[in-house]
């Protein structure tokens, strides 16, 4: 039995300790915001925040998260910071198919939490593990810049 905090609530899972956190989130907890793109840490679509750091949930075995804190896009979507980012993404049409967006938003959150005034290079580095096949990234970078500017004080 693995005990951890999921989106603010203490939960237990009977999953095989070798199972991927991604699969358990989607199948056991029915949290389908984290997407399975590649299962090898190459695309970032499954990003979640584990103990305050961005990780690819496909690269995390359940047995390694005993006592950890996991925040998925579902939990994050209840925050004011999410509202700000969501609006900024929408304002500049930074979302097309949407598959990368839960991961992209969490990568944006981790960047701004560490560095509330990132320059363009820092933004591109922060989202470098999150692949987007639709937008060409420029709109996403712009959205993060807008959120940083308009959300002053939130991060």
């Amino acid at each position: 039995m693995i005990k951890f905090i999921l989106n603010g609530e203490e939960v237990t899972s009977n999953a095989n300790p070798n199972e991927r956190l991604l699969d358990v989130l989607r199948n056991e907890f029915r949290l389908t915001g984290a997407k399975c793109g590649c299962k090898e840490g190459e695309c970032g679509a499954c990003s979640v925040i584990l103990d305050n750091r961005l990780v690819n949930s496909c690269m995390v075995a359940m047995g390694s998260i005993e006592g950890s804190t996991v925040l998925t896009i579902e939990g994050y979507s209840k925050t004011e910071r999410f509202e700000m980012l969501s609006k900024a993404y929408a304002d500049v049409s930074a979302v097309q198919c949407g598959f990368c967006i839960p991961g992209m938003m969490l990568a944006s959150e981790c960047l701004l939490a560490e560095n509330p005034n990132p320059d363009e290079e820092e933004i591109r580095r922060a989202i470098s593990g999150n692949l987007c096949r639709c937008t060409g990234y420029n709109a996403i970078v712009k959205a993060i810049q807008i959120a940083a500017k308009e959300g002053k004080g939130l991060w």
Partner: protein
Amino acid sequence: MVNSYFTTSLDEALKIKNTKPVTPYAGGTDLMIEADDQASYLFLNKIAELKQITEDEEYIRIGACSTYSEVLHHKLIPQILKDAVIELAAPAIRNLGTVGGNVCNGSPKGDSVLIFFVTDSLLHLQSMSGERFIPIKEFYLGRKKLAIREDELLVEILVPKNGIDNYYYKKIGARNALAISRVSFAGILDTEDGRIKNCATAFGAVSDVVVRRPDIDQMMIGKTIDEAKGIKEKYLAAYDEAIVPIRGRVSAEYRKSVCQNLLQDFLETNGI
């Protein structure tokens, strides 16, 4: 039935390693690519003793389960290692992947491994029956073949503190992030009173093990820069013979000429 073990104590982990056929799990970023339901993992990622970064008189001692992000943000870590880590994968992988995992994965493409080779770092191995320190060059016996016993865990990597400030590092990948090294190269040239005190080079991703040839680099040691220029051709020729790349994602010919160019650039950067 799956038998995986989670512990927060190094003693406990060593006890398990002593009796059970477990695969140590540090960051998981290599293991989970081929996630195996039936594997027996020993989860080491929450053992505080394996995540410390400290120093003694001679070495920076990096706990094997320190993640790349922890390494990147730690003030004791030498810049040469930070330069390699910043180009490694992407933030989410750097938050999980560990230096010990990189070493024990046994690949010649490991980006931090190359730095441990060029700095002649030591590995601290521990088991219930004792501990030993071995140079990383002796740890790599062949591709995925390592000089670690069944009952041992890698607990620390010891990077020498002195003589590694004047370095050269280049990674050739297909893109800026999430790129596996096609060729990587690191060189160190330490001079004192106008003479070369130490010359060290390492080539990653070219053959089964990182190429580190102190016997060739020896040529440069004790020479002035002018004298080094005089033996440059001989030195380059020795490496030309020593580097026999295997074909991988890119051709052996490509790898070879990149190695030669990087070595030459390293020398030229140092006025040789």
